């Protein structure tokens, strides 16, 4: 059996990272990526769903059936019907329109929080993996400390104290969710910096920054991007949790707030006030998780289904 190979599902030899062994830049890792992703049907559908959500977030007015803040006191607690497909709440607002407008906050928090965490995670991981030594030890110890801290409690604390504007929520979630990205990028850097193409670049006289940005980083990013898709999902869940606890942005419509609101009417059994906003959170989070899974499979065909 070749070195470092494993036996595949059907008994064939699978050589780990063959592209690396040739000493070439492993761009060939991306070959056939899109085709493999498309085969993952639920992930592919989720991607379309997320695109639809993005459009909804940009022009919610086009999708909503009425103004989400319009109250109507003779139309309270109407169960789902043709006019209000998700019913109305205690002051006669249309639940469907509110769910539609709620997309904005969730996506915004998800994306911006993850951009922040991505920036931190990639920087920490790259510094740690490329330079190694004491810096690596320090940064990884810091990462461990952040991993041990019960994150949600800390976020809760910070938001409760500094106020719950949507910007605070995004920033704090971003600041506290970079650890997995840092670890992944570091591991990639550790492998890549020993590769022959890096040595080749060095021997041609390329400086640190050129090697990092031109040669290593592009190859190290893919796993971090895949991980980010999962982080978007968890950022959306955290935001929903915060606004459920009353720590959301009070000036915006969020799904978590709608759920918190519906809790007051639980006993009366107005199920539509609870069911639909929660379903929206669930579907959005599930979509991002599925995309992450699909990307993972497409990127590491060897690990399919793990």
């Amino acid at each position: 059996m070749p070195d470092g190979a494993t036996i595949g599902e059907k008994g064939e030899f699978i050589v780990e990272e063959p592209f690396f062994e040739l000493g070439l830049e492993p761009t060939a890792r991306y070959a056939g990526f899109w085709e493999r992703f498309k085969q993952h049907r639920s992930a592919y559908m989720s991607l379309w769903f997320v695109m639809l959500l993005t459009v909804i977030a940009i022009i919610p007015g086009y999708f909503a059936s009425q103004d989400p803040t319009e109250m109507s006191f003779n139309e309270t607690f109407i169960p789902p019907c043709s006019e209000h497909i998700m019913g109305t709440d205690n002051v006669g607002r249309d639940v469907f329109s509110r769910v539609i407008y709620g997309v904005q906050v969730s996506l915004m928090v998800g994306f911006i929080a993850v951009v922040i965490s991505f920036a931190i995670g990639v920087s920490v991981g790259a510094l740690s993996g490329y330079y190694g030594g004491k810096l690596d030890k320090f940064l990884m110890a810091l990462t461990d400390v952040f991993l041990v801290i019960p994150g949600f409690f800390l976020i809760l604390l910070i938001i409760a104290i500094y106020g719950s504007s949507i910007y605070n929520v995004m920033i704090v979630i971003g600041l506290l969710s970079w650890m997995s990205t840092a670890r992944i990028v570091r591991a990639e850097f550790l492998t890549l910096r020993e590769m022959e193409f890096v040595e080749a670049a060095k021997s041609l006289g390329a400086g640190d920054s050129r090697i990092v940005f031109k040669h290593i980083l592009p190859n190290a990013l893919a796993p971090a991007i895949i991980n980010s898709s999962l982080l978007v999902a968890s950022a959306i869940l955290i935001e929903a949790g915060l606004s459920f606890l009353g720590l959301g942005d009070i000036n915006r419509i969020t799904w978590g707030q709608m759920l918190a609101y519906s809790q007051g009417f639980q006993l009366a059994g107005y199920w539509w006030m609870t069911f639909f906003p929660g379903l929206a959170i669930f579907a959005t989070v599930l979509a991002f998780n599925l995309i992450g899974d699909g990307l993972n499979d497409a990127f590491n065909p060897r690990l399919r289904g793990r």
Partner: protein
Amino acid sequence: MIFVVALNFTIVHIAPGGPEAMLFGPRISEDVRERYRRSLGLDQPLYEQFISYLKELFAGNLGFSYQYDRAVTEVIGSRVWPTTLLIGTALILSTVIAIPLGVMSATKQYSKTDHALTFGGLAGISFPIFWLGLLFQLMFAVYLDWTPVSGYSTVGSEAGGLAHYKDVFMHLLLPMLTLTVANLAVIMRLTRSSMLEVLRQDFVLTARAKGLSERSVIYSHALRNALRPVITILALSIGFLLTGAVLTETVFAWPGLGRLAFESIFIRDYPVLLGLFFIVAIMVILANLAADVVYALIDPRVKY
């Protein structure tokens, strides 16, 4: 650990406003505000407050709750039991269900069962836990009326002994199930992937080649090795469960630590928040330590 304490202290104290703003509203006179701040030691410079906080901490004193006018340790102490009960039962139940499911999923990779379980696991980690709680509440407590809606025990009930335990149990059922479902998915996914990893290794092949039964290969060879990462996750899931407990306890008005956190945040009860955070961080650190010890027990290669 020191880092956690320092971090918490800093965050809480740089905050705008303060407990006096919450207790008295914005219209209090400067004089009253000053007197109140002095009585709580809030007029001292920050580092002095921090030093006195540390001193008290080592003496086992977490300070005094603004809200309850009682020692923080006492306030927290009175809430520890319900949360322990909730988290403990959920942890046990989810582990007992999740590990066999994960093993089943891994050994029958790519089968229909596996696909269903994998998708179920993914759905499980995508559920907003409070939504799940609210739906359970609607279904089992409101429509079916099988269990109480919320609380720890029936208000005004004077039942003692067995009847009391039964009462608490009925109240526990829904929050426990909610937490279990969420935690189950995490543990199952991890068991599956870690099991798949192990099943590919040479010693599994050897065991099969020796002619051992499939059952013995899976349970005594593979699973034993697959459990290591699972134990890490069990330790991490203490943190996860505590987080979930904040949301679940809020939904079900379960009088535990999570609900206390929720209440304290709105009153800006800093000492309670700090104390809670401290306790939770310590619980998580201890759980991680415990995981390391268990490693050494099940894996003779690991020594300390």
